[in-house]
């Protein structure tokens, strides 16, 4: 799993059948010190409570399709948790 910051929301009225009811959020992937790395992506919200500004962790590929009910909806990234706190060792 990787860390990410939710930076926005996506609404898509026309979509494939399997995506009905799935919330989509724009996520900027982060490194462990919360610096941005790589391109932003669109992730399904599998905790149904994530929103813009929040620090989250997400899974990719098959694990993302496993995160939602029903399983194997066509998504490639899914948010599976909201971070309360990260504690890194002093010299990390």
């Amino acid at each position, binding site marked *: 799993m990787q860390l990410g910051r939710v930076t926005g929301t996506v609404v898509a009225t026309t979509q494939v059948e399997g995506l009905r009811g799935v919330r989509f959020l724009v996520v900027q992937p982060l490194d462990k010190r919360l610096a941005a790395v790589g391109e932003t992506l669109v992730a399904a919200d599998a905790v149904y409570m994530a929103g813009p500004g929040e620090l989250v*962790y997400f899974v990719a590929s098959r694990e993302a399709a496993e995160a939602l009910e029903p399983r194997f909806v066509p998504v490639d990234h899914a948010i599976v948790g909201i971070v*309360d706190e990260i504690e*890194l*060792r002093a010299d990390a």
Partner: protein
Amino acid sequence: MKIARVEGTVVSTIQHEFFDRQRLLVCDVIDPGGEPTGEYAIAVDVVGAGVGETVLLLDEGSSARQLFDVDTGPIRAVVVGIVDEVSSEGGELQID
């Protein structure tokens, strides 16, 4: 599997039900000489690894689901061992 060093912990209350009460670790992937490769993962700990320890990081979903004895679940990165010593062509990594 990859060799990694535990750099910290993640506290999370709102999460997918699969991760309920699981311990989450921030792990830096390292090379056999102990240098970080730049890759990291948030991983579930099943061996009781502590911050600063060198660990074996499983990074494959099917094996991870077998480990948790489930057919489904959004799980991939799991800390599955605590490393005592690494010896390879790149040198030796002695763990304190």
